[in-house]
């Protein structure tokens, strides 16, 4: 088995850590208080980047799953599994922070709102993916890939389904940002992107190593090395 000690993952991790430390300063010290939301607006500097990473990881998982189905290459499968687990993490973060924010800003932990609902269902699909990988036994990678493709198609439908149901008053937060707020937000997005890349690459390497170990053992068994 080849050693995967490339310096990329630690380097990305360091960059992401520095970036996130800088955004902590930016969020709590540099940015002014929002005029409508006061303190609760500060949740947003980490909520939005994590939401971006959720959709990014699901997108990566969906593309890799199409690769699994059409190319039948296990390298695609490593990427799909890694991205799926990351999307479960980011989904949990987005739902938790979104719910806390909804409580702070709207007074309810949960409301019927397109972004909340589509994130929730997306997260449920990705949890289903991980459950499938863990409990469906051999051959589960192809089933899970099918689920990921279905899930990717499903999310826009949920979004529009909820959106047309009951229009909730929507103002845009992003466009109202100025100066340091904007800088902090996009710095945060970039830092979390680097963190996402570091976690993804590392998880892909672990998944590949696990698969190679399994295959080596099977080959050794086939060759009659183990009694």
């Amino acid at each position: 088995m080849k050693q995967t000690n490339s310096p990329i993952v630690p380097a990305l991790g360091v960059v992401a850590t520095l970036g996130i430390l800088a955004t902590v300063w930016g969020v709590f010290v540099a940015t002014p208080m929002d005029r409508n939301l006061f303190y609760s607006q500060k949740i947003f500097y980490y909520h939005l980047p994590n939401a971006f990473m959720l959709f990014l990881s699901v997108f990566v998982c969906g593309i890799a799953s199409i690769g699994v189905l059409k190319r039948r290459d296990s390298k695609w499968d490593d990427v799909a599994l890694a991205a799926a687990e990351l999307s479960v993490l980011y989904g949990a973060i987005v739902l938790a922070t979104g719910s806390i924010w909804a409580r702070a800003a709207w007074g309810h932990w949960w409301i019927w709102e397109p972004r909340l609902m589509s994130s929730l269902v997306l997260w449920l699909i990705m949890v289903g993916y991980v459950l499938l990988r863990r409990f469906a036994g051999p051959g589960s990678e192809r089933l899970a890939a099918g689920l990921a493709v279905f899930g990717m198609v499903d999310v826009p439908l949920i979004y529009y389904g909820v959106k047309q149901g009951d229009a909730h008053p929507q103002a845009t937060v992003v466009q109202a940002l100025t100066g340091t707020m904007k800088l902090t937000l996009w710095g945060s997005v970039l830092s979390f992107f680097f963190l996402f890349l570091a976690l993804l690459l590392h998880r892909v390497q672990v998944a590949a190593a696990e698969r190679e170990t399994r295959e080596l053992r099977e080959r050794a068994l086939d060759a009659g090395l183990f009694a």
Partner: protein
Amino acid sequence: MSFVQHALGIAWKDLRVELRSREIVYTMTFFAALIVVVFTVSFIRDARSLPNVAPGMLWVAVAFAGTLGVGRAFDRERENDTLRALLLSPAPRLAVFLGKAAAIAALIVAVELVAAPLLALLLDVSLFAQPGVIAAALLGGALGIAVVSTVFAAMLLRTRARDVLLPVILYPILVPLFIAGTRAVGAVLKPVPDLEAARYWLTFLGVYDAVFLVVSLWIFEDLVIE
């Protein structure tokens, strides 16, 4: 034999097997009726069942009973390993898929034909004031559930824990269908039926069915491959 004939032949085969024993139809419809009854005794205010939960009840009953029926229908194929034979037969795999989906849609329609009148009776809602809308919603819902659950049930066929995993992965995918179905039925049940909204949600349901049918057509072969 043409593609359509293959698909129809497989659907007819499934339905004939079912008509001989009637095992799935009886258990599914009885289960759906039970769900409706359990709901009517669970959601109560002022000693009466709540009429405004009727659309939700209808779709939950259909979805639960549908999952049960789909699982059993594919168990039947698994017991004698007949799905492998079907896939090895000269019929195109897409015809196999469409045939099985059509047969399952027919089973779900049978469940709906029992659950919807029962719901109207027990909750005292005028579910059939707009028969066209209700029929279209029930048919569109049955088609969507049948297409998606056929894909998943077929691919889960040879896995462990498939009885648990089928609903776990099926229901999140079906969420848009539930939204559209409950909204369409709910629009008709309003004091003044909102036909425009009903038409919108029926279109939504149709788009959902079309999108997932196309996706299924393109990935079904890759999913059931040996």
